[in-house]
Every structure is written in structure tokens, then in C-alpha cells.
């Protein structure tokens, strides 16, 4: 099993999950975080830590978010690891809870 970051992280990226993850299995993109499914050890700590309720265990993943399993697997292999909590994105509180954010997901930074 694994845990899965879903759309409500997009444009928010609070990173509270990163601070509690015991195995540092979070990977960071420009406006989203991804969990590496084979490194995650199913401790459940990130679920309660996330202020945006964006993280689910694979077993509790709602049907309309199942595609995030693959998204996490793919992005965690191309993005750099993140091990320290940082400031959320500037408009995080504005974006938290907004639905259908997948269209805003940025895979690669346009800068540099």
C-alpha cells in the first residue's frame, strides 16, 4: 500500500507533511508534492499533518482521485526529494479547498 497526495495540495504546498514523514519519501515540484509509493511505509502521520486534507491512504482514496496514484509514482521519480518544511505557496490559504485544481499542476519549473 502507499499514501497518495491528491489535488488539494496543488497551489498550496503547505509541506507540514514533510516535517512529520519519518522516511523522507516526499518529492517536490513547483506547486505540488508527491509521495514515492515504494518508499512510503504507511505510518499515517502525514494524513493528519496536512492542513488541506490532501493526503489519503491508497485504500481510502476516493474513486475520483484514483489517478493520483500514478501521478505520485511518476512525479516522485522525476522531482527532487524534499526533507525540510518550508513556507507554503503565497496564495495557499486562498487555494485550499478549491476543487478541480489538477489543471493547474505544473510538472516542471519554467524558470532556469
Amino acid at each position, binding site marked *: 500500500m502507499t499514501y497518495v497526495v491528491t489535488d488539494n495540495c496543488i497551489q498550496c504546498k503547505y509541506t507540514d507533511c514533510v516535517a512529520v514523514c519519518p522516511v523522507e519519501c516526499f518529492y517536490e515540484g513547483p506547486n505540488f508534492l508527491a509521495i514515492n509509493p515504494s518508499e512510503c511505509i*504507511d505510518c499515517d502521520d502525514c494524513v493528519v499533518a496536512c492542513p488541506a486534507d490532501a493526503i489519503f491512504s491508497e485504500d481510502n482514496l476516493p474513486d475520483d482521485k484514483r489517478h493520483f496514484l500514478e501521478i505520485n509514482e511518476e512525479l516522485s521519480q522525476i522531482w527532487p526529494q524534499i526533507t525540510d518544511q518550508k513556507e507554503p505557496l503565497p496564495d495557499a490559504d486562498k487555494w485550499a479547498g478549491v476543487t478541480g485544481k489538477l489543471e493547474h499542476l505544473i510538472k516542471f519549473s519554467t524558470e532556469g
Partner: protein
Amino acid sequence: MAIPQKYQPTEKEAAFISKVVNGKYDREIITGLKKFIDGTIPQDMKGFYSPEEIKAITELDGTDRDIQARMPVKITRHYFEQAKTSKAIQMLVKASPKETYDLDGASDPGKQMSYSPVEGLIHKYELGLIYVASTCSAHCRFCYREELIAKKAVERPDGTVAAKGLAKIGDIVDYVTEHNRLVNENGGRHPETNREHLREILMSGGDPMVLGNKNIAQWLAALSQAGIESIRIGTKELAFFPERFDATFFAMLDAFHASYPQTNLRMMVHFNHPDEFLSKDPNGNYIQHPQGGLEWLPATRAAVQEFRSRPWINMDNQSPIIAGINDDADALRIMQRELKRNGVENHYFFCGRDIVGHKAFNVPIETAWKILNESQKGLSGVEAHARLSITHYKGKTEVAAVTDRPFPGVPGGENGVVIFKLLRSAADAPDRCKVTIVGRNPEAIWFSGYDDRVIMDEAELYSIYGIKLCTAIAAE
């Protein structure tokens, strides 16, 4: 938003940590029963739970006897492979409805919260225990940290109720430094608690070995820097996922030892049964090694040999005696012999704790003593070092002897007596090796089974609760 202040390592710590590389591990963990139920489990794992077993467990979902809420189900690929040919391992790791038939027990066994001065730290004896992880690679059904693993709220001495939190490096370093400063200023004893120097820390959880190398390295360095002389790592990872002990891990340990040569590492490993580390032939029998002893699982043996090739690292095994898993003198004899032969000391065997639901797992105290005693017949002196311990609120207590000779005139005395010896007093040392003698009760699974038959109570295991000697009760 304020980012919580992270512990700032010293230059020396940072120099060591910068050399550490995290390994990559795929434990192939299966958590929960859902994949077993919906059939998405890997093909060869189908059938690990029968449809009847699944039905009996899931029928309890959402009730006060919910098995998965009591303790989440979790197994690694490696442990599953061993479970296929071992009834004992299946008992250890497979959920069963009998776990919640009887919910009697304590939510915080050993009253750990009353010994917790800082979140995530239990300070007993001259030893501190810290919770550094809230999970393990797989879950023992009889887990004594169920409240931590299943994230249940426990009551604290101040009356508040909250889930147990993990230790933070900065908090622990501050506590150790301040405690030892007061001890030093006061001539070797803490002015309030009378405790000695805090010189040993046990990293526990959960299993510290689920953490990455860098995370473990930060703890090792910070604790050493704070003056801790011996660090213990309590782990069952050798049984659950021995591949965790890879070249990157031992490189981290070597770099640590180069930076902090004075710190001693004690691996407190947790094998319950020889099926967890021995190879079997196709008939399910252990394999005699041509050069003597029995064949080990290669990855497990390789990890033990790596540890043992480093003279600053000790290894000790401790295990509870659990019904249906290792209440078997022959299995315990083989385990003690093979561990000692490969350089792992046999430290304690434990009587089951009074966790919630303990009646499904616990072996009566007197039976456990007899099983261990039987297992040690035929072992040499050095192989038979392990003692049977039961954890009293006052401290670690040895079940020193169970006699068969009648001791007339006291309840249970017609069968003989049980002798308890207080090994470690949790608060401080004066009561070490004091003894309590009780009339026998072959059914007793906890101290309370002897409340009406206390013959002599030098260790004050009973008088601390106002329980009188049976002679005093009879006189009333």
C-alpha cells in the same frame, strides 16, 4: 506561518551527517485487509487469509471489537515469505477475531506517561527511552505499543488525553543536557529525583529502523554530542526486512564511529521464534549446517555478521513469551542456542503485558517460567543467560523461581510458591534485588492474580497498592 524551529546540529554533527547516504528500500508492505478482500493482492499472497477468516474479522469493523482499529494489519514481503511455512509467524502477524474477545487491560501499560518529562521521552532508571518512529515495517498482533502505533489517545498524569507524540531532537538534547548539568552540580545525583547521570538512551517507537540513514544519523550524533555514552536501537527489522541493513547503513555507522568513537551502540533485536531467521528445507525442517549449527536466512545472517564485526556494537535479543507463537520450549531452546552462537546475547524473555486484549496472547506467568526453564535445560551456561521478566509499575521484575514443593498455610501454597525479584526500580536504585514471595496461582497472567496470597513483600510490589500479606488478611 511560522516554521517550527529545527534542531541545529553542531559543526561536528553536520560534518558527520554530510557523509551519510540514504539507501532505497522497497519493503513491499501490505497494510490493511482491503487488498486481501478485493483480490488486488499479489497472486501468491492470495489465500494467506481464508474467506472465513476475512469474514470473521470484517464482521467486527466499526464495532467496539474492531480488529483493524485495535491494531492496523501490516506485513512485508520478506515476513510473508517466512510466514508461508510457519504457524508461529502466522500467529504473530495475522489478525484474528480472538484479539478482541476480551477487552480487559490497560491503555498505557507500565504507566509510561507518569515517567515522561518531555513528549516522546520515558525516563526510567539511568536510561531514557525515546519514541522516534510511530510505525514498524510489519505489525506484531501482540504489540505493546499499540496505543502509539494505532495512534490512540492516552491519559497523562495532568489528566489531559492525547495521542503519544514522537520525540524531537532539540527537546531531548535540552533535557539530557539540563538533567546531567543538575546531576553534576549536585555531586552525582539529581537534586529532586535522586537519579544518576542519564547516560544511555534507547531509540524505540515504532521501529527506528524504518527511518532513513540520515534521520538515524542525526539522532546518533545529537545524543553523543549531548554526552550519551550508549545508544540502544530497539528493532524488529532483522525479522521483518533484513535487507534494510545494507551497505549504506553500515557506512553510516562507520562514519558515526569515526566521529564519535566513545559512543557504544547496542542493537536490541526482537526475534520471537527461530522461524524468523532460520532456513528450512522443503519438508519444513531446519537445515543442519555442515560446520555445525543451523542454516540462517542469508540476509539476516549477513546483517548480524556485519554488526558483530564492529567491536563497538553489541547485540541483545529480547522477546515476550506469547501463546501460540513461542510458548514452546523446543523453539526457545533452538533460538537461544543459535542466537548465542552467532553473537547475539539472550537478554530478557518477558511475560505478556496487560495491554488491552492481552488475554488473547498472554501465557500464565508460572507456565511461561516453566517453558523458559525447560528450554534452558540442555543449554550451556552462557547460552542460558536470559531471565524471565515481568514489568511492574515499580520496575523490571524477574520471575526468579516457581516451586512445586507445598508451602502450607497460605492460599495457593499447596502447589508451591512464586518468587519475584525486583531487578530495576524505575525511579531510582535502592530497591534493586529485593524479593516478593507469593502462593502459586497457575492461572495468573498478571501480578493481580496473586493479590490474596502474598507471603513476603520485601520488594513492595503489593504494599505499594495497599495490598496486605495473606497472614494479615487471615488475621482480620
